[in-house]
């Protein structure tokens, strides 16, 4: 019924869920690194972009699908590690403002490199395009990628959760996110937990790259840039301090964005970002600590 009022069909709902799921993964990727480094990695979108180019080149070279996916992971993970080694580690003790500006610089650097090497016209990542075909579920056409995205996102989130909850390095990462200084004095190796967070975050960026190229096969230097900004807004909306609220924030903004995109008449869809960010500002005015946090907890950090 509500769907009827919003002029949304089941297909749009499925696509919105899928976008929410992909944004949730990006939120986890950003939130994990923020937890251990207190660093908002603005260059996260460029990791996704690099992965997308890997997929595009793999399909241009007619590589088999699995090889393209493998290349995507290899490129994104390698780039994550390089970023950690060259930027995050040397700046680790600097103020959050310095690190944020540094990640801006990295983001624009990578974008410019992509522009120089691959040109402004973009490349097509087509090897996973068959996932755009619909399947019919009780009379409703739903694109395969919507189902795949939701399933993959849930699996990834469960895997990250298990890793954080059940493994020693996961426990150390959670402790480091709460009180890094004390964790180190207990013998927790800083480089190990940061490296772990960066790697997981990179793996998630690779997964996101795969999902996004199915929806948007044209890979340009600003690929995933807009998504990153929206996800960052979502992460702040949910509550940057904690992984679960940040993830919910990412999902919420992806879902809302997908739903609005489907509900708005085509002539008005250019207002989508404005509506989205107006909503973010409104929510933050009312709940400055985030939509999904309990007020007191996040204040304790300060």
């Amino acid at each position, binding site marked *: 019924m509500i769907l009827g009022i919003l002029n949304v069909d089941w297909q749009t709902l499925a696509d919105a869920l899928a976008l929410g799921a992909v944004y949730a993964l990006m939120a986890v990727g950003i939130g994990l690194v923020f937890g251990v480094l207190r660093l908002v990695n603005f260059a996260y979108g460029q990791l996704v972009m690099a992965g997308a180019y890997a997929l595009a080149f793999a399909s241009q070279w007619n590589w088999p699908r699995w090889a393209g996916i493998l290349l995507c992971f290899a490129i994104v993970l390698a780039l994550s590690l390089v970023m950690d080694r060259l930027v995050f580690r040397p700046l680790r003790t600097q103020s959050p403002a310095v690190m944020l500006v540094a990640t801006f610089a990295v983001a624009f650097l990578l974008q410019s490199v992509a522009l120089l090497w691959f040109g402004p016209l973009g490349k097509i990542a087509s090897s996973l395009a068959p996932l755009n075909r619909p399947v019919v579920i009780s009379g409703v056409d739903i694109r395969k990628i919507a189902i795949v995205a939701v399933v993959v996102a849930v699996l990834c989130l469960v895997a990250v959760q298990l890793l954080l909850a059940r493994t020693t390095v996961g426990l*150390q990462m959670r*402790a480091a996110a*709460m*009180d890094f200084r004390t*964790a*180190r*004095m*207990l*013998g927790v*190796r800083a480089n190990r937990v940061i490296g772990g967070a960066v790697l997981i975050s990179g793996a998630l960026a690779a997964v996101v790259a795969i999902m996004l190229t199915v929806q948007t096969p044209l890979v340009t230097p600003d690929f995933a840039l807009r998504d990153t900004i929206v996800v960052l807004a979502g992460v702040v909306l949910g509550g940057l301090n904690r992984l679960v609220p940040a993830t919910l924030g990412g999902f919420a903004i992806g879902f809302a964005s997908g739903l609005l995109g489907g509900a708005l008449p085509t002539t008005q869809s250019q207002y989508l970002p404005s509506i989205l960010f107006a909503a973010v500002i409104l929510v933050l005015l009312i709940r400055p600590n985030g939509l999904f946090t309990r007020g007191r907890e996040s204040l304790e950090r300060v």
Partner: protein
Amino acid sequence: MTVLVVENLEVRYGAVRAVRGLSLTVEPGEIVGLIGPNGAGKSSTLHAIMGAAPVAAGDVRLAGASLVGRKPEDVARSGIALVPEGRRIFGELSVEENLRLGLAGRRSQAGADDAVERAYELFPIVRDFRRRTAGALSGGQQQQLAIARALVAEPDVLLLDEPSLGLAPRIVDVVFDALAAIRESGLAVLLVEQRAQRTVALADRCHVLSNGELRLTLDRDDAADTEKLVAAYFS
């Protein structure tokens, strides 16, 4: 053999000299006290030993090897465990998870389960509440957890930063009794405290720090000599 040696230690934060020319030693099976008013440089000394405060001059040696310039995690893993001021429990983690974090300081993971078991025996309350969220424990229970967490690393040296702070007298007894038991097991203990009289009574010897400098050293017999204690603090 002397396990921990601090020699002419100087700690500087910018222009502020928090610790000046401090020397002390701790042997296995010995508690050395470090007392003095707020801002005397007690915590700075412990942080300098841990590699978490800037050492401007002097040396810190563990079993002969210098620790100066090492990262906190490397100092911890080489055999020094710290019970930090304010306990620094991870409030959102369970008691058991807090204890397992202490295992990060072990030189080898072999025998970790036995070490946890021994910590439980020393502090039964930690075992009883192991499934609870650590933040829900009382201050005294958290302090016991903090000491247990340090002990599971099986260090050679245990540093404690004001473990009795904010605890009820009955709980202070529990903590100080535990420290006596820990000394019996052969650990070298460096105890920073504000409760001067109790610390002097417990420790094998006790250094009084003021303005970053060692003013005098008291032994156990001085615990009853209130005048001497007061004079040491306010000289």
